[in-house]
């Protein structure tokens, strides 16, 4: 068996248990561990894998199996998916009944409210780290800025912003600007 697979599983299992406030909130830590710690990806590869995951529908967590795919093919995909979903799912199922019975408890409500500002800061950190990796020239910076504005001011699917950014970059490349 590929010796990388248990390491992939453990990395992603650890990340999933740190994901307070959703998958986006743990991406800066994923960047720290996978790019700066393990050197499994360059920073720009990390940003590109995130972009590919955004082209598929579904929850944002699907970016993690894609990291595994880039590292070790289909086996890596499965190891990362099991890692990122397994421990947190077992925890959710184990606590499901107890949590449902106490859904109105002041402590749980307080915990949920306490996590909101942290999730906002972590999502912003995610954007900043991705922008730092992706924006290696002025065109990319303009695309990032425009896409952020699109999300804030338009109710349309963000897939349109991704498509526009991709087309703009292809046009720039064909015209010799890239």
């Amino acid at each position: 068996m590929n010796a990388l697979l248990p390491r992939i599983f453990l990395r992603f299992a650890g990340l999933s248990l740190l994901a307070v406030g959703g998958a986006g909130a743990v991406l800066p830590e994923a960047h720290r561990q996978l790019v700066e710690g393990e050197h499994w990806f360059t920073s720009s590869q990390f940003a590109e894998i995130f972009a590919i995951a955004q082209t598929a529908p579904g929850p944002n967590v699907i970016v993690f199996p894609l990291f595994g795919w880039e590292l070790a093919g289909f086996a890596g995909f499965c190891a990362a998916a099991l890692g990122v979903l397994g421990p947190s799912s077992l925890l959710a199922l184990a606590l499901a009944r107890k949590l449902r019975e106490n859904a109105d408890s002041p402590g749980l409500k307080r915990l949920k409210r306490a996590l909101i500002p942290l999730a906002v800061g972590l999502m912003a950190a995610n954007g900043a780290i991705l922008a730092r990796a992706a924006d290696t020239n002025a065109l990319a910076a303009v695309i990032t800025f425009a896409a952020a504005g699109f999300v804030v001011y338009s109710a349309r699917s963000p897939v349109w912003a991704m498509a526009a950014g991709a087309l703009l970059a292809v046009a720039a490349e064909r015209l010799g600007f890239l």
Partner: protein
Amino acid sequence: MRRIDLFLGFFKLGALGFGGVGPLTRRIVVEERRWLDEAEFAALLGLCQALPGANTCNFALMLGDRFCGPTGGLAALAGLLTAPLALLLGVASLFAAFAHNSDVRAALFGAAAAAAGLALGTALKMLKNLPRDAGMWGLAGAAFVAVAVARLPLPLALAALAPASWLLQGRGRS
């Protein structure tokens, strides 16, 4: 409620939820399938936001578990992830096959720049919805600086900021 219904309901959510599944979850679970009413939906989603892991995955698990036990939870989770993961494998294989094409390289470059913008825009929208409270904005800023600027490990940042945020939420309450 049967497990196959859970699977199919969440399959639709996964297959149609481009750019995040948040708003669509409410539409399918509350309006279309009428599995939960508004108050039950908000309560269950709130629980999932307090748990570690992907919010929508935990939501599928807990909703399925509520109606059909743990296997119902797994049926809902499998439904949610089947279409996105299959599509993702297809897209990733295509990119791998054309990785050296200069148009594909450029498209990916532009898409990565846009995806960074999507994350920033999502954060701005979350910030707009944050209560106008100096403490909460300060904590959001501190989380940003700790993780994006100081590049502290997340467990360390959370160990410092989560208790502070917890205490802040207790302010003014008995």
